[in-house]
């Protein structure tokens, strides 16, 4: 799939449009400039943060936590999702728990996880992994359950044992849904990591940065940090988007 320059730059339009909207709102003073700084001020704060080195450190911390919790979630949720999806009865039994926790805010789970994992790094990663795992599990199991049956039967006839049917056919058949799950999962992991950095004490990370900026009412820095978080989320999604394009070449055909 060859893409020319304009197609490659298309995602940037989205960013440009968003920033333009922001600048527009700022210019018309529809929102008080004290509350919403101009993109330029935020950019300045962003740049200062990077230059002074502190933003980069927080960025890095958040990335590491997010990636770590996502990987844990992935390792747990994909196999489990496939197995549950393939055994609809077990899934039905466990569905309550999945939907229950999917619908409970991570912040309400903090007390429990604090008790289980203490006040350190582990709690943040555990909560985020838990939230991401639920999203991935939900999507993978759903994909497996609603995968078309014909090819699975073909593999059975060819003598594939049940678990090979799962790994060779069902999982691939539900690949698009698995990718949706992974993209949901990575976004959720990031959101929870940031919330955890905000509310479960932390000395670093973008969440703590946002919280601090809010406390001392440094709006440019707050928006710079939020923008950094959103950007990070986009980039991580982009990785999966590109992986999917490359890997699920048969999609929609």
């Amino acid at each position, binding site marked *: 799939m060859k893409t020319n320059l304009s197609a490659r730059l298309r995602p940037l339009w989205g960013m440009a449009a968003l920033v333009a909207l922001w600048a527009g709102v700022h210019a018309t003073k529809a929102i008080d400039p004290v509350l919403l700084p101009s993109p330029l001020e935020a950019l300045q704060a962003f740049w200062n943060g990077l230059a002074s080195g502190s933003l980069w450190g927080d960025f890095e911390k958040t990335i590491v936590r997010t990636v770590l919790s996502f990987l844990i979630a992935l390792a747990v949720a994909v196999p489990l999702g496939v197995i549950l999806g393939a055994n609809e009865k077990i899934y039905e039994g466990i569905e309550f728990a999945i939907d229950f926790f999917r619908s409970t805010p991570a912040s309400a789970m903090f007390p429990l996880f604090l008790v289980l994992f203490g006040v350190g790094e582990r709690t943040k990663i555990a909560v985020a992994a838990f939230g991401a795992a639920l999203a991935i599990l939900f999507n993978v199991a759903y994909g497996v359950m609603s995968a*078309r049956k*014909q*090819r699975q*039967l*073909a*593999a*059975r*006839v*060819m*003598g*594939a*044992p049940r678990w*090979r049917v799962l790994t*060779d*056919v069902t999982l*691939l058949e539900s*690949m698009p849904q698995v990718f949706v799950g992974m993209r949901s999962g990575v976004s959720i992991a990031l959101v929870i990591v940031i919330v955890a950095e905000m509310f479960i004490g932390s000395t670093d990370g973008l969440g703590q940065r946002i919280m601090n900026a809010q406390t001392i009412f440094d709006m440019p820095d707050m928006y710079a940090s939020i923008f950094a978080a959103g950007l990070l989320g986009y980039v991580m999604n982009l990785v999966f988007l590109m992986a999917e394009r490359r890997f*699920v*070449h*048969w999609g929609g*055909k």
Partner: protein
Amino acid sequence: MASDSSQASGGGRVAGKAGGATDGVQRWFAPGTHITIRGLSKRFGDAQVYDNFDLDIPHGKVTSVFGPNGCGKSTLINMIAGILPFDSGEILFEGKTARETRIGYVFQNYREAVFPWMKAIDNIRYPLQYLGLDKGEREARMDRLMEAFDVKLDLSRYPYQMSGGQQQLVSIMRALVVEPEVLFLDEPFSALDYEMVMFLRDRLQKVLVERGVTTLLVSHDLDEAVLLADHVLLLTKRPTRVADNLRFDAPRPRTAATTVTPEFIELKSEALEIFQREVRR
């Protein structure tokens, strides 16, 4: 899978005429039978497709199945192959189960049965890994197949890059590569061009007779059904019964020349007559 013939199965009575309407009594299978179906019942919702259906499929022979649309040919094959549960009755493979038998199956729905995430060649190679062969033997089988087919087709493409007929051909090759004990062909030539059909009829006859593969061929082309068959199984409309089971003994290899022999023409018109009588009933 309930079975109301479990007791009779233990007995040793000699089988009656294969298939045909039964009077409720179950029969033991005849010698030379590979697949024995007894008291098979299957319904979809309120549609009874099979009701206490009996059939013997002889070992190492080609049985052509000829019947109207929707009579349950694909359903029957799926039940025999073990991928569709049935309501009652039993299906035996000389004492083995379907799982223990090496099966080749060309699905009617060939497009949905190949794996789009694999290249054609890998699709064909796929079933070999379940035969417990070593690598050399697997390669040898692939080479033999490639040689026998001598395809000009580019097998490094993905199925979705292929035309309907090409996909069907891949599906046929995948079924043959395992050198199956039992081969199910559900309208296997429906999308193939004239030349390819001629070629495959020849090849298949050779392979099947040589290796003694028990084959079930569904075809709506009566010429083809008779030409390839040792037995022509004629099915009725639903609820499906065996209308008749005709033998065709012409010597092999059978070619275009066979189709003009009097036996062929006679058998064909007999089959057609039975078929039309049953369909119009």
